């Protein structure tokens, strides 16, 4: 009898053990195949993958490995499909577009060593470098760009950024419905790539540096389908690094790409992207030295970290703003919208509630957006004055009360109770609670509604709300990228702001070839937006992160990207 009991316990044990055993084998097989693939990929960096887990600054035959954290497993790292910042950071290191953006934020040669625009602004010609190669050693030609750009329009690929980056290319409207060859992009020879636009686009150079338009290898994609971008072996790229090992949910290991044209300038042997989701886990890994840079810093640690030399706060082009449903009463009244805007103490929100990780917003377009002459767009806005003086909160509240009275609601009398909708992440909830209090001061009764993320987005887009949290981080530094949001028919115009003058200014900015006129049109649009309170800017986004001083030669761009390709690790 006793034996049977023990046998049973053993059976239960075996059950879990078989599960373990099976798992073990599978895992080992996986690593072996990836190791082999790395071996085959023209370098002998295979050693890296084994030592990858050791301390971040381990030196191996292939050079130093930089261990960083910028986010969890990216949803996709197919250049055409990616729309997230963490995926973008990885694309930046594994791919290179025709053009790149340098440390000063200026366009620089990438795969193309030079480029020119025709006088009418419609024809862009890019001249590729000599001897470009893919990470597998095969040749990369202008035809690869033709394939890749057409692929972005393919409805079966359904690239989220297709319209943003190619909408102005001639033939786009036909290409997006499936007739890919209608897209007017040509390779006149192996080294010359010509794009014809249907309307001038002064910032097309920025788009030529946009990760969505990275070249991808036709043969690999046709052989592997969508799965090509999910495994190290089939992920053929052309940038400073290639993926040598990928353990989903754990890490992506990139090794230096010897076939990259500027490989001599790359000092690191590789970059290990630790796919950590939890900020506390990331912080622990940073404290133990396993990771030298983390993007996800626990917010509760920020008060003790601010002021430390390894804690960085740097602006990115983006604004945290509130949408008010301009189609609904009482928000159709500009005075109500302005009163709501003026009642907010932005200094308090940014510096206290958001612990200084955001900056108070006086304009819609914050720091980092570039005017047509290359200067900061913000410095030229409103004659150099802020639209909203964030330092005079008391006076602002008085003005808000007056505006509300002008609208026929003295002290909020006669105003219906309104709802503020937001999802619960980051500081959204504390901001909602603050708004409740701030708007109560001028007599507005606010109900806060917390909505789950996946329901929140469509609800806001359908205009099914009173007021809601909103935000935008720029894709490229041309101001039209964010000002377009309030264009009457824009898909992101959640507030349903509809102003003929605003639309006219935006249209002028799209068609004019004159830089000064274009700048004027864009500034006029922002003037109208702020005067009409088409949305309520609250704070500018910053990136804040921890980075060890051992990392040298890296920089952070206002697009939210970290450039580690030319970095080194000090001993």
């Amino acid at each position, binding site marked *: 009898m006793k034996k049977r009991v023990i046998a049973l316990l053993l059976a239960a044990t075996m059950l879990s053990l078989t599960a373990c055993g099976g798992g073990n084998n599978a895992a080992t097989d996986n690593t072996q195949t990836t190791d082999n693939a790395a071996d085959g990929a023209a370098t002998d960096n295979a050693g890296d993958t084994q030592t990858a887990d050791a301390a971040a600054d381990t030196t191996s035959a292939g050079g130093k490995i930089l261990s960083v954290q910028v986010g969890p497993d990216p949803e996709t790292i*197919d250049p055409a499909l990616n729309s997230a910042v963490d995926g973008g950071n990885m694309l930046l290191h594994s791919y290179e577009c025709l053009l790149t953006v340098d440390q000063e934020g200026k366009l620089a040669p990438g795969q193309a060593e030079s480029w020119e625009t025709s006088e009418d602004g419609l024809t862009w010609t890019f001249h590729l470098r000599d001897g470009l190669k893919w990470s597998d050693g095969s040749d990369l030609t202008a035809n690869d760009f033709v394939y890749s750009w057409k692929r972005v329009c393919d409805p079966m690929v*359904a690239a989220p950024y297709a319209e943003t980056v190619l909408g102005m290319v001639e033939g786009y409207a036909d290409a997006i419905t499936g007739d890919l060859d209608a897209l007017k992009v040509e390779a006149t020879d192996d080294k010359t790539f010509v794009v014809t636009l249907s309307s001038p686009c002064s910032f097309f150079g920025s788009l030529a540096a946009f990760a969505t338009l990275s070249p991808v290898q036709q043969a690999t994609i046709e052989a592997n389908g969508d799965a090509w971008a999910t495994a190290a072996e089939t992920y053929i790229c052309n940038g400073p690094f290639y993926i040598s090992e990928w353990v989903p949910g754990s890490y992506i290991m990139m090794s230096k790409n010897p076939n990259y044209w500027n490989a001599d300038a790359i000092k690191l042997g590789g970059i290990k992207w630790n796919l950590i989701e939890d900020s506390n886990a990331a912080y622990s890994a940073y404290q*133990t030295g396993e990771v030298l840079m983390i993007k996800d810093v626990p917010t509760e640690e920020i008060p003790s970290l601010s002021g430390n030399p390894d804690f960085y706060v740097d602006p990115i082009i983006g604004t945290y703003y509130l949408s008010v449903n301009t189609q609904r009463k009482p928000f159709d009244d500009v005075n109500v919208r302005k009163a709501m805007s003026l009642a907010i103490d932005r200094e308090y929100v940014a510096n206290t509630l958001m612990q200084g990780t955001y900056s108070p917003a006086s304009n819609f377009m914050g720091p980092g957006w570039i005017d047509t002459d290359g200067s900061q767009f913000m410095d030229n806005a409103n004659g150099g004055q802020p639209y909203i003086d964030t330092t005079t909160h008391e006076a602002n509240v008085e003005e808000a009360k007056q505006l509300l009275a002008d609208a026929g609601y003295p002290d909020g009398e006669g105003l219906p109770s309104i709802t503020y909708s937001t999802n619960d992440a980051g500081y959204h909830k504390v901001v909602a609670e603050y708004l409740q209090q701030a708007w109560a001061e001028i007599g507005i009764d606010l109900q806060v509604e917390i909505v789950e993320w996946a329901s929140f987005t469509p609800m806001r887009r359908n205009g099914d709300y009173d007021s809601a949290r909103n935000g935008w981080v720029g894709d490229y530094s041309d101001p039209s990228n964010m000002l377009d949001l309030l264009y009457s028919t824009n898909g992101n115009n959640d507030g349903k702001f509809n102003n003929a003058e605003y639309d006219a200014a935006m249209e002028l900015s799209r068609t004019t070839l004159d830089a000064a006129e274009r700048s004027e049109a864009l500034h006029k649009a922002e003037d109208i937006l702020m005067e009409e309170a088409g949305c309520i800017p609250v704070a500018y986004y910053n990136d804040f992160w921890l980075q060890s001083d051992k990392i040298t030669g890296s920089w952070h761009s206002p697009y939210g990207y970290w450039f580690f390709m030319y970095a080194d690790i000090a001993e």
Partner: protein
Amino acid sequence: MIKYVAKRILLAIVTIWAVGTLTFFLMNMVPGGPFLSEKAISPQATAALEAKYGLDKPLMQQYLTYMSDALHGDFGDSLKQRGRTVMSIIQMKFPISARVGGLSVLVALCLGIPLGCIAALKRGKFLDSLISVISTCGIAVPSFVICTLLMYTLGVNLKLLPTMGLTSWKHYIMPVIALSFYPTAYIMRLMRSSMLDVLGQDYMRTAKAKGVAGFWILFKHALRNAILPVVTYVGPMLAYTVTGSFVVEKIFVIPGLGGEFISAISGRDYTLIMGTTIFLATLIIIMNVVVDIVYKLVDPRIKLK
């Protein structure tokens, strides 16, 4: 026995079908969709994506297509993790969760059963109180607290153990402790109370009167009867544990299946929601059948019908 197993398998198929159907319609009733982001995707792109994955078809047709594909073993492509199939995600991540989870259950059984027995035998003594305190803590303290405490002391402060990943045996220690804490405590309590119950039975007194030695009584007569509630508990618990814990996996950066359950739902990754739900349901059903059979083996008085 064979008839019983056949009946159970038939019932299992019906149950899985019901779970799948319910999940399918419930998840489609929830607002939102898989192709949403803060920045609106152009209507053409959304339409193209929906056409690609068949989401533009009427719901009933989608359901029939899904079910017939699933019957042929095809659980579809993940809608969010482009390029990966649902099966490949489960195949990749389940073994990892199963290894950590299986070890944790093993630890829970090896600690919980003996400690529970000891507590019952030393009822009211110091040892009993000590074990009770421990088990109360184990049940009351949530796993993320234990994770964080372990991480802070052993990982960050003392630097004894690695804090993330799963590449050596050392990496397993903290997640296994964290995962086994609750089941150990629960098994200890179950074992203690059912053991106390059994110890008070008449046949125990008879055995004692016959002069059976103390340890022998415990093993041969008491444990066999007392272990039944533990078996009931361990079955489903094993199914849940081997499919991974969201919290523990997130904190220790373990690429397991636990996180997929949550992220699939919050991201409205319909095919992955279906795949993981059906997978978990199947495991639980299997474990329940195993529990029934184990019952029969432990206690021959039980008839399987």
